[in-house]
């Protein structure tokens, strides 16, 4: 089955995916420190009323990040 790559920013509330890779090095280091490592499951928990930022469940806790930061994270959804 072919894996489909999206950015995290493209997902909707309730959708989940597996972290694949990052497009921005600096942001990726910060995100990985916070537990967003490749292979980890990530779920969109909440989106702020104005559409930005978003809150995600990852590594067993809730993390909030801006859309611009989420768009540097590539995820694959298991179709």
């Amino acid at each position, binding site marked *: 089955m072919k894996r489909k790559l999206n950015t995290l920013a493209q997902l909707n509330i309730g959708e989940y995916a597996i972290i694949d890779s*990052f497009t921005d*090095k*600096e*942001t*990726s*280091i*910060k*995100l*990985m*420190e*916070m*537990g967003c*490592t*490749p292979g980890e499951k990530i779920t969109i*928990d*909440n989106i*702020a*009323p*104005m*559409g*930005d*930022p978003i*809150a995600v469940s990852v*590594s*067993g*806790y*809730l*993390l*909030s*990040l*801006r859309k611009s*930061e989420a768009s540097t994270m590539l995820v694959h959804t298991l179709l």
Partner: protein
Amino acid sequence: MAEAPDKNLELLKLKIAIAGNPNSGKSTLFNVLTGLNQKTGNFPGVTVDKHSGSSKLKRKNGSVIMAEFIDLPGTYSLNPKSLDEHVAYNVLCVPNNPDRPDITVVVTDASNLKRSLFLATQVIELQIPVVLVLNMMDLVEEKGMTIDTTLLSTRLGVPIVTLNAREKKGVDALKLLLTETVVPSNKAFITKKNTEDPAQENIERYRIISSLLEGCIKTIGEEKESFSHKLDKILTHRIWGYLIFLFILFIVFQSIFYIAAFPMGWIESAFTGMSEWGSEHLPHTAWAALLINGILAGLSGVIIFIPQIALLFAFISILEDTGYMARVSFIMDKLMRRFGLNGKSVIPLISGVACAVPAIMSTRTIGNWKERMITIMVTPLMSCSARLPVYTLLTSLIIPVGKTWGFFNLQGLILMAMYLIGFIAALGAAWVMKFILRTKEKSYFIMEMPVYRAPLWSNVGYTIYEKVRVFIVDAGKVIIAVSIILWALSSYGPGDSFEKIEKKYQDKEYVLHHSQLEIDNSMASEKLEASYAGHLGKAIEPAIAPLGFDWKIGIALVTSFAAREVFVGTMATIYSVGNTDNTQSIREKMSVEKNAETGEAKFTLAVGLSLMIFYAFAMQCMSTIAVVYRETNSWKWPAIQFLYMGALAWVGSFVVYNIFK
């Protein structure tokens, strides 16, 4: 007898650093360990607060060791990128630094162990003595998890203490452990430091953590939808979220505006009582005058802020402790970001309507340096309560009572417009600064949304105590010094000018025809004119004449620096009204004041509006300046603030005066 053991204590002083993630309960543990034996300083060279405190630890054999705890800034890693991380890194990693600890306690959120161990393993790898604390064990139970601490301790090579700092469970066990010899772990998790590719190292570290935790954590039962998740649905809802936030702001604002007014009234009357007693009972010497009008007035100017600071920080501490503040940032971030601000800037800005002093102190919760600086720089533009008496006096002077504009009372409308102008100016200034301020620090919003918890009242108490103390000690010095200078400026004049005035009013003929009150009032007025402040007012007249101000207003501008509401009192003295409480009579005197050149009324609509705009924009508040100095740890920022707000005030007044002239 009593002194001998104390000397032994000095010899056995242990230095213990407390490290951990933000929201790990690190500060709660620090408070529990040290109680009120805390002090705040700065880490050398940076503006990060250094909280340290001492505590006596009892050994198994009954002897006592003195321990000094340092609460390190909360960080997620030891990669020194942000200022906070740099401080933690320096204390733990740089040999020979004065704060280098004997033991490091790493506090982790046990319900979130995987992420917590990222920092913990980094600290353990430094080969320094480490004690690992698994905090929030109550949450672990709630989640239906069990942790095999013996196995984890063996794998990490460090002793582990499980505790719940909120309920003080397990703290004694930790204290006892700290008195014993702690040896560095012999485990190295990342064998080859990959400095070339920190991303690869992060991935490797999490892989190792996963294998360390394997078999250590067992989850019984399935995780159901948590309480936090349900609450988030309401508190970050697109309608309810904002309504609830608005309601909370309303409560906070009402409290610091109205509730604080009662204790502030008591403080004021206590000081008035003291100075009245002083002027009656103390000999009429220069020293007594300095004590009463300089020092006592300065002291009251410091203490008067305590109720507002205490109330605001009670609220902020509760909002932080419960986890709600993170949600405020979450729902406000997009809106505030446009102006270079942060979601957390909302609280300081709104609090600024009551008083900029506690508002600026509350910007500490903004993690990003640039966003915090911008918030500090624009908060004094919000119309604070000290401007209200000035606005009230001036609107009543230029707008007849009861005059309406359409359906609206014009006086009320102007007052509202002044608040609006302040708010718009603050946002505008923030927007401009967004492009001017440069920082190497990238603006991140990557932060943990902590689970909701009940506020811990002891933490609220510590926060209030801490903030009030810091304000009195650091800002208080500046405020008292400036008060004394202002007092000297307005009570002394060059040469023998004061003696001449006194002689004039001792003239028998004059005394016979005037009441004592009249003599006192006109003498005070003439003395103020002859004082250094009076000369200063006259000296700045050319600069403020284009705004429609004369030297009398100039004097008021100078003395207003103590606090803006002093404007009313100074006007009362200049127009020799005497009783400052009676605004009615000040208004009457001011309304009959004639313009020397045109012979018409001095306080026209143009002058009144121009003066109000000046008070809306100018940085005439030494307390705010003192607090900005304290919060930025440099005179550069208050100086920039003073200049830009002064420029804004001058230009704004100039434009308004010329439009309405």
